[in-house]
């Protein structure tokens, strides 16, 4: 008696099947549609580069202001920490207020003025960099 059997599919069979895969033809309007898309792409103006030259002074001033504020903050915190640390044998010493509070209103006024100046400079700079775009 003869019967049908199957052997595990071999590499040659897989190669034969995969290498004879039929291709498709692009539809008739494909090239035209691609060229339309390319023309649209070409018609779009190139993106405006960031004006590094004009922005550089503002960036430098901004970075300087940030650095100044950070340094001032660190100094103030250090002094505050030193002043509030419990000193041994302090019972006999007179109370010393934190140095940051020494300046009082004068110091606060300087900081406020500085903050206002930084804000003013940044507003002026941004108005100069983007005139009439608002």
């Amino acid at each position, binding site marked *: *008696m*003869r*019967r*049908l*059997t*199957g*052997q*595990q*599919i*071999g*590499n040659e*069979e*897989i*190669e034969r*099947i*995969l*290498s*004879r*895969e039929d*291709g*498709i*033809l*692009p*539809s008739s309007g*494909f*090239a035209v*549609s*691609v*060229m339309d*898309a*390319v*023309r649209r*792409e*070409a018609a779009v103006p190139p993106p405006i580069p960031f004006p590094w030259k004009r922005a550089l002074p503002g960036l430098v001033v901004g970075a300087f202001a940030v650095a100044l504020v950070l340094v001032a903050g660190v100094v103030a915190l250090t002094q505050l920490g030193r002043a509030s640390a419990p000193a041994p044998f302090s019972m006999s010493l007179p109370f010393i207020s934190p140095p940051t509070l020494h300046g009082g209103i004068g110091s606060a006024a300087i900081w406020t003025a500085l903050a206002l100046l930084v804000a003013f400079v940044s507003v002026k700079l941004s108005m100069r960099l983007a005139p009439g775009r608002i």
Partner: protein
Amino acid sequence: MSAFEGIVQRWQSPLVNLAYRFCHDRGRAEEMAQEAFLRAYRGLGQWRKDAVFSTWLFALATNLYRSELRRIPARTVSLEDVAEPLDARASDGGLEDRDRDFAVRRAVGALPAKYREALILFYFHDMDVTTAARSLGVPEGTLKARLFRGREILRSKLPRRLAVPRLKEA
């Protein structure tokens, strides 16, 4: 612009066909090929003249097709489902050639991406390992390993029913 039109005319068929092998959907294949041409147009300046243009174009298209299919995968079946014969009438022996071919291609589509991509590109480039490896951006050795492993998975997962029927004396 007219020079690029020549490029589109020359390469439209290969790029659409390559996309079709990835997604098996004519409409999507043409969309992906169009996007590939657009990217080629934008990136023509990046093509180094010492490289063959077709190699550069196929690598660009392959990258695009792979990322598109990662974003929206093509409809595939699992390898286990491939084992089910399409035509129950043929389950006693072998399937018709056409059905067997279809089942093998479905099985390729169900392979893990790295093996599937290796097989697609290898056969698309007429079994040229160097070109296929360049298109995929992997060393030739890696491609060969992926081809070997991909075929192994195919052979182990494809059902015996798919094999060429042979008459055996009992």
